[in-house]
């Protein structure tokens, strides 16, 4: 089976750990951000750009990303982003990742469209853990999927470029790789199924042999 989803990474360990876990490694292809070419992405169904990406490097690949979208495919951008390649404005905000200890009935996201395929069937706790900033501007006509109590935009999507461009200030892939938030299988697996039609199966584990590696 050829891999379905490109997972952009800039050499960090959390994304490497996720993409090499047995549960995900047959679905996700690591795309080292400085080496992305059309040949490496043209057969994929979707591309995920996780939180803590190198958006200066991604901006250099802007034409490839929009060519990919123009073919009717999906692109997801998580956490922060820049206007260098995205027609949307992300702004930083303080991150509260302990609200569930101090005030569990007041999560950072108050409104979610649970009819969206990623969110359909998710419990509220699985649809929001913490956010990294907010969008103060999104592409014209974009559909708003999640907002804060103050109405700030957390998650949106648009089809104006051909396929679907999905933006969120959630950070599911990075956090799932870190494995400190143990319920993220719910979100990431729903996202995976939406992106490529395959629902990942099995426990999320790591292989010792994937560590201490050389690279050709």
């Amino acid at each position: 089976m050829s891999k379905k989803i490109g997972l952009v990474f800039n050499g960090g360990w959390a994304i490497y750990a996720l993409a090499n876990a047995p549960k995900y490694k047959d679905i996700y292809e690591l795309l080292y951000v400085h080496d992305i070419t059309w040949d490496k992405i043209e057969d994929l169904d979707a591309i995920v750009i996780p939180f803590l990406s190198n958006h200066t490097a991604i901006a250099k690949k802007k034409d490839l990303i929009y060519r990919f979208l123009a073919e009717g495919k999906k692109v997801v951008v998580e956490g922060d982003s820049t206007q260098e390649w995205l027609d949307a404005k992300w702004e930083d905000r303080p991150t509260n990742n302990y609200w569930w200890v101090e005030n569990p009935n007041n999560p950072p996201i108050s409104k979610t469209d649970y009819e969206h395929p990623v969110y359909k069937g998710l419990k509220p706790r699985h649809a929001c853990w913490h956010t990294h900033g907010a969008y103060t501007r999104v592409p014209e006509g974009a559909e708003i999927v999640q907002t804060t109590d103050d109405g700030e935009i957390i998650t949106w999507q648009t089809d104006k470029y051909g396929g679907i461009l999905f933006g969120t200030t959630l950070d599911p892939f990075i956090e799932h790789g870190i494995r400190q938030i143990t319920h993220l299988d719910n979100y990431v697996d729903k996202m995976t199924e939406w992106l490529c039609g395959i629902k990942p199966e099995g426990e999320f584990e790591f292989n010792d042999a994937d560590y201490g590696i050389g690279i050709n």
Partner: protein
Amino acid sequence: MIKAAVINNGAHGSKSGFKDNQLVNYTYIDVDENFNPDLSPYDLLLTGNPTDHVALYKIKDKIVDFLNQGKTLFCFSGWYTDYIPGNKWIMERDIKSIDIRYFKKSDKNNLLAGVNIHELIYQNGISGWWACGHIEASQGAEIILVDTLNRPIMILDEQTTNGTIICTSGGPLNGKKSKDEQGLHAVNVLYNNLIDYIYKKQNHEQEDRVSI
């Protein structure tokens, strides 16, 4: 003055972790498609959290040469590629976050002096955020901190190369606050201790060279 090179993978906020002070001057080296830095001007190579372990593997021979010149490597991020001589990081989640604790194992050079380990264990009452996975340390390394299962999560290795290697198992440290500033967190105190250690070592070695 310590001249430090910070390998920057371009993530949001990645240039704010280390601030110049009277002991250290930091240079951020951005990773791009032509990454091949000259490490010769520097005394300390710093791979913070996050960093780019693909790029660092590409210059692994330079890193060995750098260390064999008696220089220092700090790595505070899970190095899944094999560029740190003698020491390997492994990602696992064998302990639930709620059960993760850290303990002092050995500290011959007082690197933990004044460090409140409780602050490393808990953040806003939540444990297990600071370090991830564990280290398979080289035989000659000193194990500074261990986790609940007595596995290394911070090591000091002055045996594998001629230089000094200090690693944490993904436990981020930062140089945002010097030791004379207010409101120091354990990650600041520990980092400042590491800087003090290599600063004294560097100056001591320079005095030795003069006396010879």
